[in-house]
């Protein structure tokens, strides 16, 4: 077979269990979205198109051998940085400058960085002796903080955090010394006041509201309170598909984007949440398994980091809708309605599959 196909292009190499998990999640997500959008077929259709593009990217990337990805990594990272800088100057958006108008479509350069940063750090570390020393660690942090700072300035705290986290995971998997981890955690804790200072007012309000949502139940606390009511009133088995009153009566804001999990929890109950979490955990676990199967350092670090970052989406989003975490704009992967993040996520899984499919073809 291989002989029939030119060069590195071989028979599609998929990790079928992972692909199945992603497909189940995506299709289920469309159903949830149908209900959450108030039975808006148009929304579902557009999401379907995005998923198709995402799976297209997944298939395409899964066929690109890791060494090609590896070689392109610095360029991708550099391009991402340039676009981020461009966004600072030419960005569009209502209150934030996240989008770059490409004429045909608008697009968030920060999304690229969700992939480019772990790729870059994996690239940087892949031919260095691990665990990384002080110098390498420092360099790696510069590589991840530079784009993160640019993204924070847009401001888009959620994406910035995801970028930082994905980079940190890469370092962690590379064997970052516990002393560093402790130090970073310490610095992180110490920098909270500084973080507070650089935050936008709306972000500060989110934190304030998070700490005490009842202080302003009709204003800033509304989202959290209504989301908790939606989740709680779902009970064990849920109100049934399309029967969630909190969402259908528009009590939940952002119900088909960031708060879609509230809708899901309301309509499918705790059992639904349990199954959903199981599915996410399966995907993350399978991703980590794949990472462990790969033979080269770059693949391993990247695959591991992508899998772990994926779970962060789920955990942060789940914590947000259930009132455990402040409201940050992090979508529920593959279910929230949203443009580039779906493509990015599926592209990430494409990379994972590529790393897996080519695990025995190390050059």
């Amino acid at each position, binding site marked *: 077979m291989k002989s029939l196909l030119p060069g590195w292009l071989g028979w599609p190499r998929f990790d079928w269990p992972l692909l199945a998990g992603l497909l189940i999640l995506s299709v289920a997500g469309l159903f949830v979205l149908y209900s959450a959008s108030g039975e808006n077929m148009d929304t579902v259709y557009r999401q379907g198109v995005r998923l198709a593009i995402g799976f297209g990217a997944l298939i395409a990337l899964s066929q690109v051998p890791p060494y090609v990805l590896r070689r392109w990594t610095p360029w991708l990272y550099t391009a991402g940085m340039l676009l981020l800088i461009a966004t600072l100057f030419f960005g569009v958006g209502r209150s934030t400058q996240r989008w770059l108008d490409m004429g045909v479509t608008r697009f968030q350069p920060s999304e690229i960085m969700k992939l480019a940063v772990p790729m870059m750090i994996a690239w940087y570390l*892949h*031919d*260095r*002796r*691990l*665990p990384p020393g002080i110098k390498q660690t420092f360099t790696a942090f510069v590589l991840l903080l530079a784009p993160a700072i640019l993204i924070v300035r847009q401001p888009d705290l959620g994406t910035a955090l995801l970028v930082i986290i994905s980079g940190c*995971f890469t370092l*962690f*998997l*590379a*064997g970052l010394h516990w002393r560093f981890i402790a130090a970073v955690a310490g610095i992180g804790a110490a920098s909270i006041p500084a973080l507070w200072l650089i935050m936008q007012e709306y972000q500060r309000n989110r934190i304030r509201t998070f700490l005490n949502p009842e202080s302003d139940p*009709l204003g800033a606390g509304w989202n959290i309170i*209504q989301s*908790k*009511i*939606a*989740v*709680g*009133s*779902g*009970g*064990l088995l849920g109100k049934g598909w399309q029967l969630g*009153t*909190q969402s259908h*009566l*528009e*009590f939940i804001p952002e119900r088909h984007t960031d708060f879609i999990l509230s809708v899901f*929890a309301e309509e499918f*109950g*705790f059992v639904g*949440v*349990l199954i959903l*979490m199981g599915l*996410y*955990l399966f995907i*993350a*676990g399978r991703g*980590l398994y794949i*990472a*462990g*199967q790969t*033979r*080269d*350092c770059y693949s*391993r*670090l990247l695959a*591991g980091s992508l899998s*772990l970052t994926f*779970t962060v989406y*789920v*955990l942060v989003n*789940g*914590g947000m809708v*259930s*009132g*455990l975490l402040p409201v940050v704009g992090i979508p529920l992967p593959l279910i929230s309605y949203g443009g580039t993040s779906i493509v990015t996520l599926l592209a990430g899984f494409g990379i994972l599959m590529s790393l897996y499919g080519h695990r*025995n073809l*190390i050059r």
Partner: protein
Amino acid sequence: MSGPDEHGGSGGGSGGGSGMRRKIAAALGVGVGASMGAHSGSRLESPWSGGGARAGRAIKDQIVEQEIFDQRSAIAFSLIVLAVLLLLSRFSYLQIINYGEYATQSVNNRVRFLPVTPNRGLIYDRRGRPIADNVPAYRLELIPEDVDDLESTVRALGALIDLGPDPLERFATARRRYREFDSVPLKFNLSEVEVARFAVDRHHFEGVDVVPYLVRRYLHGELLTHVLGYVGRLDADDLAAVDEGNYRGTSHIGKSGIEKHYENRLHGASGRERVETNAQGRVLRVLERKEPRHGDDLVLSIDVQVQRAVWDALGDRPGAAVAIDPSTGAVLAMVSKPSYDPNDFVHGISSADYRAILDSPGKPLINRAIQGGYEPGSTLKPFVGLGGLELGVIDRQSEVLSSGNFYLSGAERPYRDWKEDGHGWVNIQEALEHSVNTYFYELAYNMGIDRLHDFLAHFGFGQATGVDIPNEISGLLPSRDWKRGRYGEPWYPGETVIAGIGQGFNVTTPIQLAAALATFANGGVRFAPRVLYANKRAGDQRAVLVRAPVLSQVPVNDADNWAAITEGMRRVVHGVQGTARGIRPESGYQIAGKSGTAQVFAQDVSEDERDVEVAEHLRNHALFIAYAPVINPKIAVAVVVEHGGGGSREAAPVARAMIDAWLLQESEP
């Protein structure tokens, strides 16, 4: 990068393979570090770094790195599982432990109860002519919950629509009645221009809306004010007196008259809608609707035509007139002048306009028919005379000599007749016909105040009649006990004498007089007069007749006594010398009547100062009571014309007009 990793099949299992990898690595001659980071700085070129060989790369220990990775990913995965468990425990806390609470909140969130205001019952006169109905109007409403900045919203609205002075303050008062998500009326009865103006700018005012409603209209304006009363804006005091839940959507309530007395029937029962709303409070669908029970339609016993006749007959003079059907106790007409237009009160009268009405010299707010206290004067004589006959103080033939003056033993000043040299010997019928004071001075004196009081009380003097219009006064029927209680003084015989001609302490209201006369006319059945004639519940085909309650039966000793008094009263109108012969009708029916002259306020004066000269004072009020036909009476009336002078001249024609209007119109429906 280390050397090519030849080993391992496809699925090999990363967990248990590290030992094997280590051996292979050893076989390949790559240094095996015992522990992490044990490598010295020895630097070797990787054979695989190819053309892009970079200097300063450490030798990579593939196995150690794999080990590190496995370890780290195991830690990370464990942490993630832990975090997912934490998240799930949070969801179970919300969805299982606190399910009940959130389920309730979710239901409360979407379901609201909206009142469905019942339509106020219509009011008709006895012949079915509408006298109070409801017309559509628009009011401006605001939902506080949906308005971000109340003050600036109200200010902006004020620029479009005149909200009157201090709209915010008034709004704050009104708002206390309502819940946060209920709408609060800002202004009633918007003009068409205001409605249009708001419609244009409506999108600027979230939470503000123009709402149609029905507003009371009184078709005859001031003609029926004192009967109907009026509805006005519901205030805190009103609310304390009613079931608040039933008035949730109601803006107006009966403030006086029939509107107040029959508020419960006219209002009906509020319905309610269970509606599903979205977060903005917009009603998405009605889940359940309990229809309101609309207010009862009321048919009054008032005949607008008779009412109009009295109204016109009274002219501009202040006064009052009441007509009662003696056979049923139904009130046929009730006029008090001056009056005012109740429609002004429906939308809230301005305080300046209200002051003007309040301070108006005629005091139009007083319903003279039930609140005007007048000396009955000579109109009391038929009752005193009947008492004399029934109690055996006199008989039908008893005669008294009227010489113009009546002297009480021991007193120097005489009690006078209106005719200077008296009327000569008169019996009871002549005494009534000519209104001979002396006859009644002597009769009262012989009866004594106790018997006089007790007998007159049978006819309801000194007591509120219990008519179905609020705030009736009781008048005053003096007695020994009353005087002792009131003044701490004993009763003087002279006071009995003047009580015999309805003066002194006596105070009656026009309705009391009419009711007493009706009681007499029907042979002693004392009804509590009714203005309500029939009551039609919403949805019913037929109205239910309302009967006036019978309060008591005046004991009848001898029907001839009653007939004698009737004859005396008939002669007042039809007798040759009758004081009211001027109103004798040309047509077939006969009227029994009695004139009277009185002052508005009973004077607190001693016996000596109290004499008939006062009765001739310029400011006397003219009174007349009458019923007709004499046989089988159909109408009993009492008329007071303030400052009218003689009752026969001023008040009797009004009574006549009333009787004509009633008896001469076509037969009853």
